[in-house]
């Protein structure tokens, strides 16, 4: 089985979110970038397929050279090789187009994405990629097993879960549940040393038109101070929720 894990290079959760150039660009100054958490659960599941079922695991990112440390980290975790499509990731559809080309060229059977990136939260690349490839697609996937070309998966639905069977080629939008937090691997020194020697191939993008463009960003209005209610006066809390917030 040939697995492709799509990796987004995103600001660490604790990053301060600021914008530059008249609020049109994300300010990367001082920001630590990481593997998108939803992708990391998928990468870790891919490592399981590599170890137990002899799958090959390639990681891919669409982005500029600044994203390579994130790909190297994925190699240090255990991916066999990496591909960087050399174009900025600006629009979900364009990214899906670039990834579709990588899948077609590489003949991957299983494409593991995260359900969404924690920066733009578009949540569209996995589905669009599946749509472009005419492959089967499971979103919010929380469990995945593959036997030959048959896959059994569980997806999260509102208020529960659903078990499905399908076949490869398959694209998933994965999340926590594929593996648990405690299964995530921190690269060890040997992994980091080996990652330096693993192939990281840079490929040029295919021509595509963006369907969307970011016009600008806004930050939410600063929040007012919390209104503290004494634990001896909970009637006041009920009153505030009813008369001020009007939510009960």
């Amino acid at each position: 089985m040939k697995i492709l894990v799509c990796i987004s290079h995103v600001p660490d959760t604790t990053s301060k979110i600021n914008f530059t150039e008249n609020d049109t660009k994300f300010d990367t100054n001082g920001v630590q970038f990481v593997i998108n958490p939803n992708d990391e659960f998928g990468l870790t599941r891919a490592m399981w397929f590599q170890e137990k079922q002899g799958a090959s695991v390639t990681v891919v990112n669409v982005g500029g050279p600044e994203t390579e440390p994130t790909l190297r980290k994925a190699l240090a975790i255990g991916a066999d090789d990496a591909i960087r499509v050399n174009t900025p990731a600006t629009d979900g559809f364009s990214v899906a187009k670039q990834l579709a080309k990588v899948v077609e060229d590489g003949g991957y059977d299983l494409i593991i994405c995260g359900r969404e990136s924690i920066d733009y939260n578009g949540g569209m690349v996995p589905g669009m990629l599946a749509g472009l490839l005419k492959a089967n697609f499971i979103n919010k996937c929380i469990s995945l097993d593959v036997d030959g070309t048959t896959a059994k998966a569980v997806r999260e639905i509102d208020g529960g879960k659903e078990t499905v069977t399908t076949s490869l080629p398959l694209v998933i939008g994965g999340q926590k549940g594929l593996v648990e937090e405690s299964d995530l691997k921190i690269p060890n020194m040997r992994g980091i040393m080996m990652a330096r020697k693993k192939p990281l191939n840079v490929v040029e993008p295919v021509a595509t038109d963006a369907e969307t463009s970011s016009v600008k960003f806004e930050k939410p209005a600063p929040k007012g101070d919390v209104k503290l209610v004494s634990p001896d006066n909970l009637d006041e809390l009920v009153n505030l929720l009813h008369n001020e917030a009007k939510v009960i």
Partner: protein
Amino acid sequence: MSVLVYTESEQGKFKKIAFEVSSYAKAVADAMGTSVTAISFNADDPSALGTYGVNKVLNVKNDALKTFNASVYADVIKEAAQQEDSKVIVMSSSANDKYLAPLLAVDLNAGYASNVVETPVSTAPFQVKRNAFTNKAFEILELKTDVKLIGVSNNSFGLHENNTDAKVEDFSPEIPESGIKVESVDKATDKVTIADADIVVSAGRGLKGPENWGMIEELADVLGAATACSKPVSDLGWRPHSEHVGQTGKPVAANLYIAVGISGAIQHLAGINASKYKVVINNDPEAPFFKAADYGVVGDAFEVVPQLIEKLKAFKAQQ
């Protein structure tokens, strides 16, 4: 040219978000000088959408659509969009809608904006405001395609009545084959889900153990709320993973979010910040959650929560 809205139903009943996206579609249609067409699958009373401004309902009755299937549903909605020559398609941010939307976008060559929080900033050029950076910022996004697909963030627009006489038409689409077969669905039908709830009551490690959740469930019961929990609680196995809310768990966009014994780690806040009002109950006045909350009670959850339940019961009895 009408705005097409996909209205999700479950066992024949429209979900609340169906009315919210209908309300939203009506506002977009007004801004564009056109009407609203809805598409619904196996709904018992499709004309109910008229209350929220829908002019026409394409009513599909087909057992093949009884179980959700993203690619099949996307295909049927595509047929409807093509029949109506719709340039704007509106849906919600439910798990199912977020699943099918990107497939539909590819089928229709439509630009897609998810997590949209208000009516379009402008319709020419077509620009919408959406949540990004896990609720830490808004993005103004321009959709440059002929057909536009909008996913409305749940609870962001609300329900707006706009009594209209909705014309119900039978719609008999072709149902394509699917490569995905649903084997089983595991869903508690008697409980309000985190996605659908107006109010969510959530608790964290401050509760000390799973045996103490009775009062959280009771508080949720009194309020008709869904229950949720923080990540450590689900990692410890005190509560099921399906209750975990936060960045890597479920997102919450409720009208009211009550956090009991949750310190408010940034990953947690990121996931719940889209909620309109937040109440925190915690014995540590330095807990970061107090900076993110609207109302706070510094006190022992084991004393505050039972009292709050009694106060709320009394309040409900008066209503």
